[in-house]
C-alpha cells in the first residue's frame, strides 16, 4: 500500500476525529531533496524529554545528503536515533497500535514504511506492596498497571532463556495488550495452546481487568462456585507457579496477573509458608484449613443445633443461648441471615467510604449493630459472635471469600429448613461439584482427590525444603489430567 504523508495525516485525523491529544509534528529533514516527514505521537503517553533526545534532535541535526526517503528511513533506523526500542512497520493498524502505546512514529513522505520509537513517558503507579497479598518475610514488590513493567519484574526473577512471553491483543474496542508467560521446559504445549484458543474466543469490546478474561479461561460445564483461575499481584508468586508448569497472563492496565490452572489446595498456600520454618508453616496451614471449615459451617451448625437439635449443645451454653434467643423477635435462621447481610453491607461500605469518614462509620456500625441491637434484644450476642467470627475466619483464605460467602448463606438456609441432615446433603453435593471441576483439564481437587501422596508434602503440612526441592511438581503430571 502506497503511503503519502498527507494521506497518512488525513486518515489519522479522520480516525481520531481530530482528537486534541493526537499530535503530528511536521519536519523537514536536512537533505538535498528536502524530505518531508512527520513525528506522530499521542500527547500524555510520550516523554517529551525522551522524544526530544531520541527523535527530534537527532532528526534535525543529521544531514541526510542525497538520500532518498527509503534510504533516509534506513539511516534513521541504523544511525540517527539513539533509542534501542525501534520497530519498522507499514500498516495503519500497527500505526494506531504503536501511537496509542506511547511510541513516537516517524513517517516520511514517499516511503511506505514507518518507524516506531519507544519514548513512553505516561504516568503510572510506582511499584509498591500489594495490599491484598501482604507478607511478613517476602518481597515487598507488587505488579503495577503497565504491561512492560510487570514483564520486567518477572524477567528479573527468572533469568532463564526458557521464559517465554507471547503477546496477544484482546478487546475489540480497547485493543488491550496481554502477555502469555510460561517456561518452555515446564509448561505443556497443549495447555499453552488451550489458553491461546480460549483467549481468542473472547469477543468482549473492552478488557480493563483480569477478571474479564477469567470466565473465558474456565473449563466449560464445570462448577462456577469455585474459580479454576488464580490471580496474583506478586511477581514471586507468579514465578513460583511458572516453575510448576502453569501459565501466567499479564493484562495491560491491571496489576492482577492470571495464573492457570488453579487448584483448590493452592488457596491455602502462601508466600510466607515458604519463608518460615516448616513446623510453623504447617501450623499456619492447618489453621487456614480449620478457619475455612469454620467460616463455611459454623453459622449453619449453630442454626441447625438451635433449630433442630438443642440436645447436642452443651448444657452450660444451652441455658444462656435459649434464654437469649427466647427474647428476640426473629427465628434464629433469619437472625443469622440478617447479621450476615448487615456484615456484607458494612464490608462493602468500608471498601468505598472515604478515609476521612471511615472512623465515624465504623464507630456507628460497631455501636449500632454490636451493642445497641444486642441490648435492645433485636439480635443475640451468641448469634453475633458466631457470625462475626465466621466472617473474620473467611479472610484467612481471602481468595476463597466469594465461594465461602455463597456457601455459608446456602448452608444457613438449608440448616434452617432441614437441620444437620440438610447440611450433610448440601456438603455432599458441593464435594461432588468440586471433584468434577477441572482447570485446563487438571482436576481442581488434585492432590486430595485424585489423591497424590507425593503432593501431600505441601498440602496439609509444609515439608522441609530438602524434601520439597527433591521433586518438582508439574500440573500436567497430576493423575487424570486431560492432555488434549
Amino acid at each position: 500500500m502506497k503511503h503519502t504523508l498527507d494521506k497518512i495525516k488525513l486518515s489519522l485525523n479522520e480516525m481520531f476525529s481530530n482528537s486534541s491529544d493526537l499530535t503530528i509534528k511536521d519536519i523537514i529533514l536536512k537533505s538535498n531533496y528536502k524530505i518531508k516527514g512527520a513525528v506522530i505521537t499521542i500527547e500524555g503517553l510520550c516523554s517529551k524529554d525522551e522524544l526530544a533526545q531520541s527523535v527530534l534532535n537527532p532528526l534535525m541535526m543529521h544531514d541526510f545528503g542525497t538520500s532518498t526517503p527509503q534510504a533516509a528511513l534506513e539511516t534513521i533506523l541504523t544511525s540517527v536515533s539513539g533509542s534501542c526500542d525501534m520497530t519498522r512497520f507499514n500498516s495503519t493498524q500497527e500505526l494506531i497500535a504503536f501511537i496509542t502505546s506511547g511510541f513516537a512514529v516517524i513517517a516520511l513522505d514517499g516511503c511506505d514504511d514507518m518507524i516506531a520509537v519507544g519514548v513512553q513517558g505516561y504516568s503510572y503507579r510506582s511499584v509498591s506492596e500489594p495490599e491484598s497479598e501482604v507478607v511478613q518475610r517476602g518481597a515487598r514488590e507488587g505488579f503495577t498497571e503497565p504491561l512492560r513493567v510487570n514483564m520486567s519484574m518477572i524477567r528479573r526473577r527468572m533469568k532463564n532463556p526458557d521464559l517465554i512471553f507471547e503477546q496477544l491483543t484482546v478487546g475489540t474496542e480497547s485493543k488491550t495488550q496481554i502477555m502469555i508467560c510460561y517456561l518452555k521446559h515446564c509448561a505443556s504445549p497443549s495447555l499453552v495452546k488451550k489458553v491461546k484458543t480460549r483467549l481468542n474466543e473472547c469477543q468482549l469490546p473492552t478488557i480493563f481487568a483480569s477478571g474479564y478474561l477469567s470466565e473465558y479461561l474456565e473449563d466449560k460445564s464445570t462448577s462456577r462456585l469455585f474459580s479454576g483461575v488464580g490471580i496474583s499481584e506478586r511477581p514471586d508468586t507468579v514465578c513460583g507457579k511458572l516453575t510448576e508448569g502453569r501459565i501466567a497472563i499479564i493484562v495491560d492496565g491491571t496489576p492482577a496477573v492470571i495464573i492457570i490452572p488453579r487448584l483448590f489446595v493452592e488457596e491455602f498456600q502462601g508466600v510466607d509458608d515458604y519463608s518460615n520454618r516448616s513446623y510453623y508453616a504447617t501450623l499456619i496451614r492447618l489453621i487456614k484449613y480449620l478457619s475455612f471449615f469454620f467460616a463455611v459451617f459454623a453459622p449453619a451448625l449453630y442454626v441447625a443445633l438451635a433449630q433442630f437439635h438443642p440436645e447436642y449443645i452443651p448444657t452450660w451454653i444451652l441455658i444462656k443461648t435459649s434464654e437469649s434467643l427466647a427474647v428476640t423477635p426473629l427465628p434464629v435462621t433469619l437472625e443469622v441471615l440478617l447479621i450476615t447481610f448487615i456484615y456484607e453491607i458494612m464490608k462493602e461500605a468500608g471498601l468505598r467510604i472515604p478515609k476521612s469518614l471511615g472512623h465515624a462509620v465504623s464507630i456507628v456500625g460497631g455501636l449500632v449493630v454490636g451493642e445497641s441491637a444486642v441490648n435492645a434484644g433485636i439480635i443475640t450476642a451468641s448469634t453475633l459472635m458466631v457470625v462475626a467470627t465466621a466472617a473474620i475466619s473467611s479472610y484467612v483464605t481471602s481468595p476463597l471469600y466469594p465461594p465461602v460467602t455463597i456457601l455459608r448463606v446456602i448452608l444457613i438456609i438449608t440448616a434452617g429448613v432441614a437441620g444437620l441432615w440438610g447440611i450433610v446433603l448440601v456438603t455432599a453435593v458441593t464435594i461432588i461439584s468440586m471433584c468434577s471441576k477441572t482447570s485446563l483439564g487438571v482436576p481442581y481437587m488434585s492432590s486430595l482427590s485424585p489423591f497424590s501422596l507425593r503432593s501431600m508434602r505441601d498440602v496439609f503440612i509444609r515439608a522441609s525444603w530438602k524434601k520439597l526441592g527433591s521433586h518438582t511438581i508439574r500440573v500436567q503430571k497430576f493423575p487424570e489430567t486431560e492432555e488434549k
Partner: protein
Amino acid sequence: MQPNIKFSSKRLMLSLMLCSCSVILLQNHNVSPKNSFTVNLLCMLGGLAVSAVMFLPSVILKKTRDTDFLTVSAQSTPKLKIPLAAVYALYFVYAAEYFLLPYTDLFCKKYYPEVSPCVIGLCLLGACVYAAYKGANIISRFGLFLFAFALLTNLLMFGGSITSLDFANDSFALKADWDSALSTVIYFCAPSFIAVIYACLAGETKNFTLKQPLFALFFTALKYALVLFFVSFAVGAYAQRQDYQSFILSRVAHFDGFAGIESLFVALATMSVFMIISLFLSCINKSAQQGRLKNSILFAAIIFAVSFIAEWNNSVKEIFINDYIFIIFTAVVAVLIPLAYIFTGRKAK
C-alpha cells in the same frame, strides 16, 4: 466432567468398600441375639466368603480382557443389549430400594420423627441424580472424602463405647440358634452387591490387581467384626429393645460430657446411601449409554415412586427389604449371567 478418563481401580475399590461397610449401619435385628458373638462372627465370615465368590466373574473379565461385563455383553451379543440392560436396571432399582427404605425408616424412627420419609427419599434421590450425572469417576473421588469422615466417625463411635464394654463369663462361647444362623449368613451376603457394581464399572478403571477386592472385603469384615463386638459387649441385651442396633451403639458412645455421636452416624449413613444409590444410577447410565441426565432422572423417579408405594403398603416393603430375594437376584446378575458369557466366549474360541 472427565467422561473419557480412566481412573484408579484402587479408588473404585475403596468406594465399594465404603458401600459394603454401610450395610451394617442399617442393620435392624438382622443379626440374631440368640447367637453368641463368636457364632455371629463366623456367620459374617461365611457371608463375606460368598461375596468374594460373587466377585470372581467380574474379576476374571477384568484380568483377562481389561474390561467390564456390560462392555463384553454389548460387543458379543448386541441383540441382547436391551434385555440385559433392563435386567440390570431392574436389579439396581431393587438394590436401591433395599438401602433406601431402611435408611428412611432409620432416619424417621430414630433421628427425626416429624419428617415424612418420602421427603427424605426425594431430596436424597435428587442429590444422587446430580452425582450420577457427573459419573462414577467423580463419585469415587467423593469416596475419598467419605473415607476420611468414616474413619473419624468409627474412631469416635468405637472409642466412645470402650468404657461401656461389659464381658460376661460365657461371652465367647459357641452358642447358636442354627435356624437364625442361616438367616444371619444370608444377611452378611448383602455386600455382594458391590460385585455387581464392579461388573458394570470395571472397564472405566486402570491398574487393577487381585489384591484390591480382597483388601476391600477384608476391611469390610474388620468393620463388621468391630460393630458386632461393640454391639454385643458394649450395648448388650439393650440392643434388642430398639431397632437399628448400630444406631444404638452410636448413642451409647460418649466421651465424658460429650455425646451426640449419633449425628455423625446419621451423616455417615446418609453419605454412604447417597454414594450407593449414585453408583447404582451410574451403572444404569452405563448400560443405557445415552442421555445420562434423563436416564438418572427417570430411574430416580421410579425408585421414588416404588419407595412411596412401599411406605404405604407394608407387603411391598417386605419384598424390597428381603435378604433372600436380594442375594438370589445378586447371584444371578453377578455370577450366573457373566459366567454364561465367559463360558460361551471360551466355547466360541
